[in-house]
């Protein structure tokens, strides 16, 4: 990886430029943490690339205030999002905002070439169908231009850690234009001496003779017969063969690592190598050798080091199935990997209408940012109603794309909160009334959707009401505008990853 990042500059003498890599410090650099760092004056500039924290962030009203504390903000997106136009939010006086805001129009996914990866680990190449409109450019082109300009400035003027940029290896252009194919080759990996693509990560060496940007992707772009033609690469393949009839489609895109469709597939067979279900055979030991419908995820043969298609010997089945564990066995929990555990324990959300009846604890003792001033925890006495947020099938994330498509916008045209018939009666709210949902973080107004699908709970002898809101609306471009649900979600995070606690918090509801 270092050889790809720093190219000829990375040598054994300078430890392959390892010191150039940014190192973690004590500061929490997750989404929530970045905005705390803005408040503390540590972060002064921000690039928001296809991200819209002004709507998507927890406690988004606070995050918008923080955007106003930045010296500069760069927003790269398809439309002017709420983040790009944060200084136009309702209740904000643009004259009071000093942040310099740059908006760079980006290309949509049919307007550029490149790969997409799904949560099933498939990396699929997509081709450009049309040119982007106006001055819009694809992400790589924007990054390429930005890099060249920054490098020029750093070379002329220097600056802290300038070598990280001036020594960067950036061979991703053809005839002066950014070239995604070259990025793909760099991610796949190649032999430095002759530029030949490596077949997969097992061919990578630690002596600087090979370079590879992303080792887990290695093998997705490895065809030396046509190295510049994505259609001839594993990631560009769209063949529908399905040996075994298991829906694995091994020639439809590429699955990282090494095109393995099911990880830990050794566990699909018993200790003797006999599939638990003969009709769903991924790997099987026939008494003399392994037969397989998927790429085996375990040491199954000794291959000839020169020609790996030649099998020297087969490794018979044993009682290990988990290659990534040192002992090869399944583990009930990860040793020293998590801040909580090792066993599951029940904790109430950060904001809860009830005491934790399961054990002596209340909320998780390792959650992050629970003590941050910006959080303004909801007092259950003042805010006894549980609130959750979710997505709708008609809209995508903060709605930038879907609220700009009239057909989808019409399909779900307004922000609403779902309320049970019981709570509606208690609060004098009728269906379609305009209501206010609020806590100390903010107060937002929207339509009420009164429905028997929501029901009050009984918790610790008390009736507890729950309401729910989608979070696809905002004030920026699009066919419809509406309240930002995340204005009232708490910016606290889970102990291990700081994933925000969007889904459970406390509010009150009134007729507006």
């Amino acid at each position, binding site marked *: 990886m270092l050889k790809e990042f720093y190219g000829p500059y990375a040598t054994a003498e300078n430890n392959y430029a390892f010191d150039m890599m940014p190192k973690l410090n004590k500061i929490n650099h997750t989404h929530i943490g970045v905005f705390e760092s803005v408040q503390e004056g540590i972060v002064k500039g921000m690039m928001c690339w296809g991200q819209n924290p002004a709507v998507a962030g927890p406690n988004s009203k606070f995050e918008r205030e923080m955007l106003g504390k930045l010296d500069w903000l760069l927003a790269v997106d398809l439309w002017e999002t709420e983040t790009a136009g944060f200084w136009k939010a309702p209740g904000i006086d643009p004259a009071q905002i000093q942040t310099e805001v740059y908006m760079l129009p980006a290309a949509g996914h049919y307007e550029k070439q490149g790969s997409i990866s799904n949560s099933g680990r498939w990396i699929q190449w997509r081709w450009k169908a049309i040119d982007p409109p106006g001055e819009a450019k694809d992400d790589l082109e924007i990054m390429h231009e930005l890099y060249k300009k920054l490098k020029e400035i750093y070379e002329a003027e220097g600056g802290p850690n300038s070598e990280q940029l001036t020594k960067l290896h950036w061979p991703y252009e053809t005839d002066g234009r950014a070239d995604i194919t070259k990025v793909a080759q760099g991610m796949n990996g190649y032999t430095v001496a002759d530029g030949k693509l490596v077949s997969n990560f097992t061919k990578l060496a630690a002596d600087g003779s090979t370079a590879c940007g992303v080792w887990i992707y290695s093998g997705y772009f490895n065809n030396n017969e046509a190295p510049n033609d994505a259609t001839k690469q594993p990631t560009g393949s769209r063949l529908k063969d399905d040996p075994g009839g298991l829906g694995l489609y091994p020639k439809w895109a590429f699955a990282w690592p090494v095109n393995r469709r099911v990880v830990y597939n050794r566990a699909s067979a018993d200790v003797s190598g006999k599939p638990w279900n003969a009709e769903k055979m991924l790997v099987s030991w026939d008494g003399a050798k392994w037969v397989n419908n998927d790429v085996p995820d375990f040491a199954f043969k000794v291959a000839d080091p020169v020609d790996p298609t030649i099998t020297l010997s087969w490794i018979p089945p044993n009682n290990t199935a988990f290659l990534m564990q040192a002992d090869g066995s399944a583990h009930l929990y990860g040793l020293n990997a998590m801040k909580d555990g090792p066993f599951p324990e029940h904790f109430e959300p950060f904001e809860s209408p009830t005491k934790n009846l399961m054990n002596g604890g209340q909320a998780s003792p390792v959650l992050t940012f629970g003590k941050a001033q910006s959080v303004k925890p909801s007092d259950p006495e003042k805010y006894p109603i549980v609130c959750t947020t979710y997505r*709708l*099938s*008609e809209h995508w994330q903060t709605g930038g794309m879907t609220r700009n498509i*009239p*057909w*989808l*916008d*019409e*399909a*779900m*045209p*307004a922000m*609403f909160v779902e309320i049970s*018939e019981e709570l509606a009666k208690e609060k004098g709210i*009728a*269906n*379609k009334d305009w209501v206010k949902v609020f806590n100390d973080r903010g107060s937002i107004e929207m*339509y009420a*959707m*009164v*429905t*028997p*699908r929501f029901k009050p709970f009984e918790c610790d002898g008390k009736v507890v009401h729950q309401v729910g809101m989608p979070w696809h609306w905002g004030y920026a471009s*699009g*066919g*419809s*505008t509406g309240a930002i649900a995340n204005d009232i979600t708490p910016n606290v995070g889970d102990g291990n990853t700081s994933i925000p606690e969007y889904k459970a918090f406390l509010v009150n509801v009134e007729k507006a």
Partner: protein
Amino acid sequence: MAKNAILYDSSKCSACKGCQVQCKQWNMMPSSLDRNANEFTGSYQSMPDLNGDTRLLIEYRESEKDAGVEWAFSRRSCFHCSDPACMAVCPVGAYSKLEDGTVKLDKDKCIGCKYCNGACPFGVPKYRDNFKVSNKCTLCDDRTGMGREPACVQTCPAAALTYGPRDEIVAAGKARIEQLKTEGFTKAELYGETEMGGMHVLHVAPYGLEAHGLVRDAQMPTLVSMLDIIKPLTGLGIAAVVGGLGASFLTGRGYLRDEPDAETASAPKTAKEEK
């Protein structure tokens, strides 16, 4: 040519509205470009009813039952009847029946009199104000004529919509009802096998016809049979007479449909007045 039909199986439908949007895309039907122009219906339903620019609408009805909340989804669009009231009432012959059962409205012949809007027992054809003609589902005859499925069927991710020879569709619908009954949907019914002479869009209604807003025993309006008798005399003068009759018939006839609003969904079913 054999008759073809669509089967809409509400028990498989997730009400994602993919068909509704795909219908608009394939047929190039617009949605408003004005900001915040679309009304909030009080439920997940996009709009209160079909309109001049909307030929297919996924409807949501919910009601509380002992076993829990029944959330009934329906596909509101043209059923392509074998005895189509719209065709019988049209004074200019803008409607025709294709060999595969499709009831086709020729917008070039339509004079925008709206008789079909009121004559249809389901209120399906809607007036397109900017084009001054009525509008409804074509069963994608521009696609089916080339051996492709209707756009809504092709896009359905849940396979709740299928298309094929009508006898096979009827058999599949009946089999599905039997299966649903064994799974506890005791009120499950198939709609469209015999209604209006047999329809070319059939609807699996797991919670029963009423729960899905489907008109039980739909009838050809009596006025339509009168029109059949005088039809050979069709001419401008007759159209004027019919216009007079039609006006009274439009105000007098209502079709039974529920309010889509969640607030009234659990209230006793009431007839909606025709506007």
